[in-house]
């Protein structure tokens, strides 16, 4: 019964979020929040062979359960650019979202993101593997929901609460003075995309006590700003992802444009490692702290 | 004075021998008719003479100097070439087109001067196309266009004019007009070489004919010397009525030598069997 209910529910959740795709939404796309799926059946269900097919569920899973209970994680989790757990996954079998990689492991629980390989997820679900599909996080609140729900699914509710509590403690310390006189910030991605309202990064900016100009410019989720608009917004803080040596792409030209350089002469530039906020994880607190530091440099508050 | 000399020129296109050991000299003030059957090498000879084709053997001297040496523009002022069926690729006005003949006289960015305008006007008049100046060249009739292109060549005011079949495709009146213009140029001191298929016009207007066959110059002399029944038979494969009228030679091709009918002649048409191949 429980299994059937879950199966139906799971595949119903495997749905496309049409307008959230594309490179520009990389960060948002990979950040996951648990969608309303609670596992019916005995509360004490304790899966021992968990397979995760998504960078974000990978990291939450690792934080919640012992390594022995992890059957497989997605390949991205081993990449230090995107993952906070790259150093911790040696010896764990990595998958690329293919059914043939997952099935032989006979997992007793499969976690996937909205954007994980959908045919695989549907196949696993149909074959009777308990499957949980998770939507990406649009806010820090979604992070709490995620962690809590996965904790419940893994039978690790207490660990989940501990993770959330630790995160909330750091967030509280980073929060700035309330009031309307907040410094402004703008997040700029390599190809000129920015984060507006209803986005995880936008929420991070807000939690750091800053006004997100992306949202002020009317962008919801992630969207593109013309360079002129970007310049006219004149943020106090310009936030970029941490740049590493990468293969060249035109996408980066906007970051090196003399106009942006001129703008930077008047702003503080903060680089946030991509891995901190590409997913909605408790590690998001570190991103908030980085931005809060920048805020203090602008306002002249005493350091934490 | 010898203006242009082709000395034992040879041209090959792959295995095909287009010209072999061909020697011709052209002096200022003379008009040479270059005749020969299709594929004989007339156009090749003319292109070599104009410096458009570098011969594999032999040499071409322009005023005593090898034609490939020296300044292109000064050579272009000396020697004009009118290609066969000369095309025009854009619908230029007639006067603009004729003015192109002045290019060798202009420095790269120099605008045409009064002298150039005079030369163009006189070329237009000579070719009797003065009335066409404002017309689009592509709307002209074949005869008009041929004369306009001739005017272009005349506008160069060259010492030597090489014209490749300037009368092909024209009606008799236009043919006569074009030949008259060329004759007048020669009389005015220009060396003219013209390739022709019409033996009658060749005999009538040229005082010297050069016969080319199989890439070789097989005869060179006055129309009377050259247009012998033997040559006509051996080179052109025809029998013709040849005569003299008003002091000029005339030739009326009558029959192909393989066929039986003789020409209606006031002098006997010799049978080619009697004559050897001329060299």
């Amino acid at each position, binding site marked *: 019964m429980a299994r059937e209910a879950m199966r139906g529910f799971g595949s119903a959740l495997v749905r496309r979020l049409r307008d959230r795709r*594309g490179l520009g939404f990389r960060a948002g796309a990979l950040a996951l929040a648990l969608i309303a799926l609670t596992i019916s059946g005995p509360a004490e269900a304790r899966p021992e062979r968990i397979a995760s097919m998504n960078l974000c569920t990978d990291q939450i899973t690792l934080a919640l359960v012992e390594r022995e209970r992890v059957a497989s994680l997605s390949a991205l989790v081993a990449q230090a650019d995107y993952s906070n757990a790259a150093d911790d996954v040696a010896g764990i079998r990595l998958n690329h979202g293919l059914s043939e990689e997952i099935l032989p492991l006979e997992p007793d629980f499969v976690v996937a993101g909205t954007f994980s390989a959908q045919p695989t997820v549907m196949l696993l679900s149909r074959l009777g593997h308990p499957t949980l599909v998770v939507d990406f996080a649009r806010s820090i609140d979604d992070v709490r929901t995620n962690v809590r729900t996965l904790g419940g699914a893994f039978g690790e509710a207490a660990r989940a609460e501990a993770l959330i509590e630790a995160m909330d403690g750091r967030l509280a310390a980073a929060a700035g003075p309330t009031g309307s006189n907040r410094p402004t910030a703008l997040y700029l991605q390599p190809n000129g995309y920015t984060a507006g309202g209803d986005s995880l990064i936008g929420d991070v900016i807000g939690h750091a006590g800053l006004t997100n100009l992306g949202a002020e410019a009317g962008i919801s989720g992630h969207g593109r700003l013309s360079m002129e608009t970007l310049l006219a917004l004149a943020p106090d803080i310009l936030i970029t992802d941490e740049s590493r040596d990468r293969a060249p*792409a*035109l*996408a980066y030209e906007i970051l090196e444009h003399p106009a942006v350089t001129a703008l930077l002469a*008047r702003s503080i530039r903060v680089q946030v490692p991509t891995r901190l906020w590409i997913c909605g994880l408790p590690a998001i607190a570190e991103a908030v702290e980085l931005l809060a530091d920048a805020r203090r440099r602008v306002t002249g508050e005493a350091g934490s | 004075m010898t203006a242009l000399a082709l000395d034992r020129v040879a041209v090959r296109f792959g295995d095909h021998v287009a010209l072999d050991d061909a020697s011709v000299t052209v002096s200022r003030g003379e008009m040479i008719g270059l005749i020969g059957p299709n594929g004989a090498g007339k156009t090749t000879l003319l292109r070599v003479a104009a*410096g458009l084709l570098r011969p594999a053997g032999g040499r071409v001297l322009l005023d005593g100097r090898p034609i490939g040496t020296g300044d292109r523009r000064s050579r272009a002022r000396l020697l004009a*070439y009118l290609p066969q069926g000369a095309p025009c690729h854009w619908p230029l006005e007639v006067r603009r*087109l004729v003015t192109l003949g002045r*290019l*060798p006289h202009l420095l790269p960015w120099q605008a045409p001067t009064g002298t150039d305008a005079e030369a163009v006007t006189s070329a237009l008049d000579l070719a009797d196309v003065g009335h066409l100046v404002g017309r689009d060249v592509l709307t002209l009739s074949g005869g008009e266009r041929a004369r306009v292109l001739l005017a272009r060549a005349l506008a160069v005011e060259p010492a030597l004019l090489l014209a490749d079949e300037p009368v092909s495709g024209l009606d008799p009146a236009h043919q006569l007009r074009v030949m008259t213009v060329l004759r007048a140029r020669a009389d005015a001191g220009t060396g003219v070489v013209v390739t022709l298929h019409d033996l009658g016009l060749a005999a009538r207007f040229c005082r010297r004919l050069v016969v080319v066959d199989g890439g070789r110059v097989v005869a060179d002399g006055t129309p009377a010397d050259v247009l012998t029944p033997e040559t006509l038979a051996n080179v052109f494969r025809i029998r013709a009525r040849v005569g003299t009228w008003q002091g000029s030679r005339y030739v009326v091709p009558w029959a192909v030598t393989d066929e039986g009918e003789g020409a209606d002649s006031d002098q006997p048409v010799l049978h080619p069997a009697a004559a050897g191949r001329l060299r």
Partner: protein
Amino acid sequence: MKEAGLSRPLALPMIGVDRAWRLPLALATLLALLLAGSLFAGPVAVGPRELLGALLGRNLSVAEIIVWELRVPRTLLAAMIGASLGLAGAVLQGLLRNPLAEPGLIGVSASAALGAVIAFYTGFAAAFPLGLPLGGMVGAGLAVALLMILAGRQGSTLTLILAGVAVNSFAGALTALALNLSPNPYAAAEIIFWMMGSLADRSFQHLGVAAALTIPGWLLLISVARSLDALSLGEDAATSLGFDLQAVRWRAVLGTALAVGAAVSVSGVIGFVGLVVPHLLRPLVGYQPARLLPVSALGGAVLLVATDIFVRMLAPGPELKIGVVTALIGAPFFLILLLRLRATSP
């Protein structure tokens, strides 16, 4: 008709101006107006007073950054690239004596894009600033040289267009391959820039590296003007008029490679400018190839600056690629020209 339309508003002050100068002067005036207008076009409103202040550089205001770092280089690039495309089109058409010879149509621009893509995504352009336009130049040069061999001498329109189709598809496929091979996740999506062209967010750096190759390219292209006149009469007649056609071909190939290669390397492929502009202006200069060159350069600049203003004035949000607009204008011209050519030649 068109001449009247262009010169009538300017006819009065032009009394006494030599007829031959009227068209270039009219185009230059129009270009100057468009250049000024282009500085006003953009999502952020900059008023005349602000604009003047920004141009004079009184303070380091946001308006000044917008005007100097975005609009001025973009406007100058549009003018320069438009001029290159108009000029290269007119030269190729004169050289091949074919009104359809256009850098975009015959695959020269696509090959330039391939060269630029290789230079850019391998990191060569980052290591050596001129690497980008040089990559474009090599690509364009190979394509022009190939087309000369395939269709240069007595090539028919059909040969030229078919050869162009082949070169276009081949270069396009290799460009897609090169972008897909790039380890960068953004690269594959950037094919749209290379295929459709854009002047958005270009800077003085782009202008500088492109100009370094473009200006020598222009000089080479302009230098063949008289030879193109002579070529109206065919190759033999042109040679007999004292022109070294071998050298002319080399200058035209190299000039096109430099100008079009540099243009495409900073703006992507912007098609049809070199087709539309010479076609419209040819009757106004009496179909004379040499006189067509300077006015085609001016006309190309006018068309591209105007088109670039247009794409910036369209609805806000992601800017329409400029090559889309030039293709929408140009493709009908191409069809009309093709039909007309079919009517005149079998």
